[in-house]
């Protein structure tokens, strides 16, 4: 399993078993990720989705020779306010190229079909 960086610990992330190699990351509701009273901070939701996207790409790269991952950009859409409950996110690698990967991630609370936010990211891959 991947070793989580300090920032993932700050968010309180817990790795849950995913399917197709990409793990589900769970972020508990806590003061450290609070925005306005009673709601998650948008930046924490974005950070969670970025970690899920990197975890998915890391898993995809494992079976493809490995490599270093560098973020190029992220576009986040916020659809619903994050309430006082657990939030989950999983990344999907839509294209794994030689130098660039396209990864999408969503974050949800009760129902994965009703995401609270979505992220679309590009990563630069430095092949080992």
């Amino acid at each position, binding site marked *: 399993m991947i070793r989580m*960086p300090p920032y993932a610990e700050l968010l309180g992330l817990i790795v849950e078993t995913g399917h197709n190699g990409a793990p589900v990351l769970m972020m508990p509701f806590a*003061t450290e990720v609070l925005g306005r009273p009673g709601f998650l901070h948008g930046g*924490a939701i974005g950070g969670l989705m970025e970690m899920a996207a990197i975890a998915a790409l890391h898993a995809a790269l494992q079976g493809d020779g490995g490599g270093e991952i560098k973020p190029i950009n992220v576009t986040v*859409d916020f659809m619903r306010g994050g309430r006082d409950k657990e939030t989950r996110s999983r990344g999907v690698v839509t294209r794994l190229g030689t130098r660039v990967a396209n990864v999408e991630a969503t974050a949800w609370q009760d129902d994965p079909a009703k995401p609270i936010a979505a992220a679309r990211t590009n990563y630069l891959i430095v092949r080992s």
Partner: protein
Amino acid sequence: MSGFTGFDPERFFRAGLGHGGALGIQYHAHGADWAELSLPYDEKLVGNLGTGVIASGPILSLMDMATSLGVWLRADAFVAHATLDLRVDYLRPATPGKTVVGRGECYRLTRSIAFVRGQAHDGDPNDPLAHVAGTFMAPEGYPR
């Protein structure tokens, strides 16, 4: 700043609560339609253990907050609003050990939508490390 202001970003940030407080984000400066926040380097923000470079998430949070403050300053009032979308270009890694300064500006305010942009640097504003563009929405509307 002279004259009446309906929104004080410095006071807003003094409490150091929630996610901003956990990341260590502080007030830096502001103008009529922009705000600057600082994010001092801290090992708890690191996203890459090998290099010591901080994760991209704290930059996203910093810029979300700086642009949000920019909107309240332009509106000259605290208005309940939510980020609709935010795009961040990560131009280069933040230098380990250096404080990141994020500047957010509201360049257009309509009845219900605020358009924002911003940049982040770690010492030299001419050598930015991130560029952002986004929108906020106020369900009850922004003051006109």
